[in-house]
């Protein structure tokens, strides 16, 4: 465990922050510019995981395990979210024969 912590602390904290920000930004960009719903789902996962990574890093630096506990929660939640999201995508596909996000633009007033 000690070994594991020193391994993580071997990389400066700033690097983690910059790296996670980049991944998060990629995720946001993906959600904004892609039209394929599955890719949007993947981009969301990307954002979630960047946060996970950052939480783990902070947790290790501060020597506080609660950050890692959050990570587990987020992973469980992400799994559930993907399950529901994919189910919705499947249903949408059956109706519209498309996974284009614009195919849902009728859902308005």
């Amino acid at each position, binding site marked *: 465990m000690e070994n594991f912590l020193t391994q993580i602390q071997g990389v400066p904290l700033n690097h983690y922050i910059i790296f996670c920000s980049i991944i998060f930004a990629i995720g946001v960009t993906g959600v904004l510019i892609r039209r394929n719903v599955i890719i949007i789902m993947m981009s969301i996962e990307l954002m979630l995981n960047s946060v996970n990574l950052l939480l783990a890093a902070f947790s290790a630096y501060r020597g506080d395990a609660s950050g890692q506990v959050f990570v587990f929660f987020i992973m469980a939640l992400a799994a559930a979210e993907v399950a529901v999201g994919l189910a919705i995508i499947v249903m949408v596909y059956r109706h519209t024969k498309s996974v284009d*996000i614009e195919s849902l*633009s009728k*859902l308005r*007033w």
Partner: protein
Amino acid sequence: MSALIWLIPLIPLLGFIINGLTRNSVPKIVSGIVGSLAVLASFVLSTLAYLEVSAARDAGSVASFTVHVFDWFSVGSLRIALSFLLDPLSAIMLLIITGVGFLIHLYSCAYMAHDEGFGKFFAYLNLFIFFMTILVLGSNYLVMFIGWEGVGLCSYLLIGFWFKNSSYASAAKKAFIMNRIGDLGFLLALFFILEAFGSLEYAEVFAAASGMSVGAPVIVIITLLLFVAATGKSAQIPLFTWLPDAMAGPTPVSALIHAATMVTAGVYLVVRSNVLFLLAPLSMEIMAVVGVVTAFVAAFIALTQNDIKKVLAYSTVSQLGYMFLGLGVGAFTGAFFHVLTHAFFKALLFLGAGSVIHAVQDEQDMRKMGGLRKALPITFTTMLIGTIAISGIPPFAGFFSKDEILAHTFQHQPVFWVIGLITALFTAFYMFRLLFLTFFGKFRGTAEQQSHVHESPWLMTVPLIILAILSVVGGFINVPEALGGHHALQAFLAPVLEMGEVNHTVLELSHMAEYVLMGVSVLGALMMAVFAYTKYAKNVDVADDKKQESLLYRLSYSKLYVDELYATVIVRPLGKLSVFFFKYVDKMGIDGFVNGVGDFFIGSGKGIRQLQSGHVGFYIMMMVISVVAILLYGIFHS
């Protein structure tokens, strides 16, 4: 007996409830019997109550019994009780109300027999008796006010009894609204009394008032307001125009409410409050002037009316004017005596008119009657008695009461006496005109009506006969000393009328002067009767009336244009004001504001919902921008 006094109003109330609930489910005869029996029971109880009061008076006591039923409400130091007061004044009023009321119930059983609203009619009549007995029995002004409002309601319901005819319905509304003006006076008077004396109980108010000086402003205000109330209920100038219109109701209603009982409530109110009025000479003077003017004006209008009920209605207004003249000059006993005799002969005349109307198939225009003497012998005889009584020819009832008022008036102010005398002559003329037009000459209606003319059934003639007997003998209860009597009624009422410190006006005329006054009025009345005979008893060409249209005739025929005057001065401006308020204040102002608020939110909602485009990318973009904005705000603001 006095402990059971609360049964007198309660039984008619029960009758009202029973009749009201079962009006559509029982045969007419049951409604009639229930209604009549309820009033008969009240009459029997009233008679017992009267006998008790009478016995107490003979024994020399003041004969005033207060029965406390329950405490109604108490606020601070003010305690208002529902309690009844049985004294000589209320005992006699009870006898009039329930006695005449019972006769009219009997009469209605036959008169209304073919009406589909029979049960409803009896329910209303019983409700009226309930409120009227409450009015006279209350031992404080508030209980009287309950009855006062209640009889107004019943009057409205019964005038508009045939409400499908819209002119009848508007007559009912007119009566209700004009009464309301008077009732406002009553209500204000209540507040002033409460403020000045801290109580509404007659006994406490009068005891407290005795200590005040004559002409104290608060007393003048109270009495004037009470008089306003009386002008509304008793149809005095300026609030008298509702009473002639009230003839839209069934004839028994006109007899009971608009002749014998309700319209005399104003007189009762003033007699009851005589202690206050004697302390306010100004109010008395105003009352006398209003009374004598009303008496004269109404009699003048009655001269030329052709509707048999309208003549009687104006005659009622005129007689009520007499009563207020009597009250104004301090002849409280005389005025109340006139209430009593007027109840007999005017109820008789109305019921007789109803009998005539019944006989000629709901025709009310006297120009289309005539010659009914042979066909309706009982109605003719009783109406002749009523006519003689109201004309003031001795020894019938009206002579005594009218002459007592006139004698007091002469002593107070001879000018009023002259006007009163002229009114009396008018009265004799129009009443005999009515009689001759209806019963003498040739029948002027259609042949079909003539073939149906018949005397009314016994249920209608028996009340007529009883009232006729009362109209003959009713005057003898208060024979003046000049004619060898000893003012029995005055002695009986003495405890009610002589409570205050200020002395009542005592008639100081010599007997000789009284004889002269009586002689003048009797002779005048007889001359008028003869004049009317020559003019109307022969085969009169009714169209004659048209030819001799003088200015006075037209003024009288068109009722002095009072209704038109009110319409121009009050009703139409008010109507215009209402339209203004409706159009500009209500529609544009209030509705505009309320609808404007709604329109604003609808409009802004329409605009904002364009944001919900259905493009998920757009939503996410907005979300990201917002999150970034919040972040930036958090960073730079802290």
